[in-house]
């Protein structure tokens, strides 16, 4: 057995401590140790984006980061997106415009879309499509996802 590593980190503003084995990914620990199961596992090889989270303000696939690397980092997951019952405009627009079907890809897409709108509040449709190219959805054909992101962007700009 490998030695366990003690990690102190911040997830959605709350301090967490966990013990992990060196081969465990951040995704494994979020879901299985911290019980933050909003972050999904799709491919586990960095191709599908279902496990997208923010680490120190950068969006990454949590399946491609070791949990032990999380020490001292600031992690943001889908659980931190709504404020209580108050949904984020992206979440509300996805619901209203049917930007999801089965929902497995949705947390990763919401995190990725939020990261885009923080960098670029007024993206073109092409920019949204390229930014979300690393988030695969096998249900929707993407069109409603893109429309939901553009509608949320418009709402957030107050336009």
């Amino acid at each position, binding site marked *: *057995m*490998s*030695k366990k*590593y003690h990690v102190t980190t911040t997830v959605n503003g709350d301090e967490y401590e966990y013990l992990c*084995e*060196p*081969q465990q*990914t951040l995704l494994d620990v979020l879901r299985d140790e911290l019980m933050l199961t909003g972050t999904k596992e799709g491919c*586990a*090889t*960095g*191709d599908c*984006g279902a496990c*997208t989270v923010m*680490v120190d303000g*950068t*969006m*990454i*696939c949590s*399946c*491609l*980061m*070791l949990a*032990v*690397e999380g020490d001292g980092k600031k992690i943001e997951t889908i659980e931190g997106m709504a404020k209580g019952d108050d949904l984020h405009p992206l979440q509300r627009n996805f619901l209203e415009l049917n930007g999801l079907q089965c929902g497995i890809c949705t947390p990763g897409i919401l995190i*990725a879309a939020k*990261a885009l709108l923080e960098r670029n509040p007024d993206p073109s449709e092409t920019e949204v499509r*390229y*930014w979300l*190219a*690393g*988030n695969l959805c096998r249900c929707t054909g993407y069109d409603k996802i893109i429309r939901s992101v553009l509608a949320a962007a418009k709402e957030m700009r107050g336009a």
Partner: protein
Amino acid sequence: MNSLRYEAPSSLGDAIALLARASGTSRILAGGTDVIVQMETDVIEPELVVDIKRIPELRQIAVENGAFRVGAAVTGMELTDHRAFCEAWPGVVDGVKLIGSMQIKGRATMGGNLCNASPAADSVPALIAAGAIARIAGPNGTRDVAVEDIPTGPGKTSLAKGEIIVSFLFPPRPARSGDAYLRMTPRTEMDIAVVGVGVNIVLDAGGVCTAARVSLGAVAPTALLVKEAGAALLGSRFDAPALDRLAQAAGAACRPIDDKRGTKEYRVNVAGVLAKRAALVAVERARQNPTGRSI
């Protein structure tokens, strides 16, 4: 599964010592976008992983005698967000921008892209065309090696045990210089190059090519520096005959495989077509850079 040890030293010396002393399989962890996949899928079962991201020299974008030195563990996002580097080396940035999704670029590094030694790595032909020099530190000291001399075959490099790529030094950027990287993929995004071409050129005041480096990816066991292709452009104004000689030289250098992404014949043909297109992008960028990039 073997017992795995994770170390994240904060100095280069400590990292080299850990790797040099390791008895079993060890891996350097930078962005992890290849290494962690290989661990997860049991392609490798290392006993030691050395995370190099806490070593300051590997994480900096610095200026040295008017030229860029980029840490090997700088992420793709950090590099593509660096305005002065993007202006000086748009072709290198073209290559880095094609390394996976935004999520992958949040972690992936040029040092990792080079050391993973995929023949289709997108940043490598761009680095070779740029003339980037890798600084390698190891148990026997430091050496500077041209990027084209690092990959030796698919998944293999010329690095010795305990050696780490610390940084990439780019040459100074003279007036009327420009670079470009283009790749061919069946899809527009999230795909692996069938052919990749990096071109880096310098023009004189009259628009005549005075220096040219051309590199091809995905058409041989390693990315190639094709000197004949660069020579085909020298002295030209990128007229049709010169571009045809470039395409001919690029195609002649290919030693490709047949696979599901493309046949040998297709790759050879595309290498020539893409080399022409990349050269024209590089020329346009050089024309828009009349005074050089002061860094």
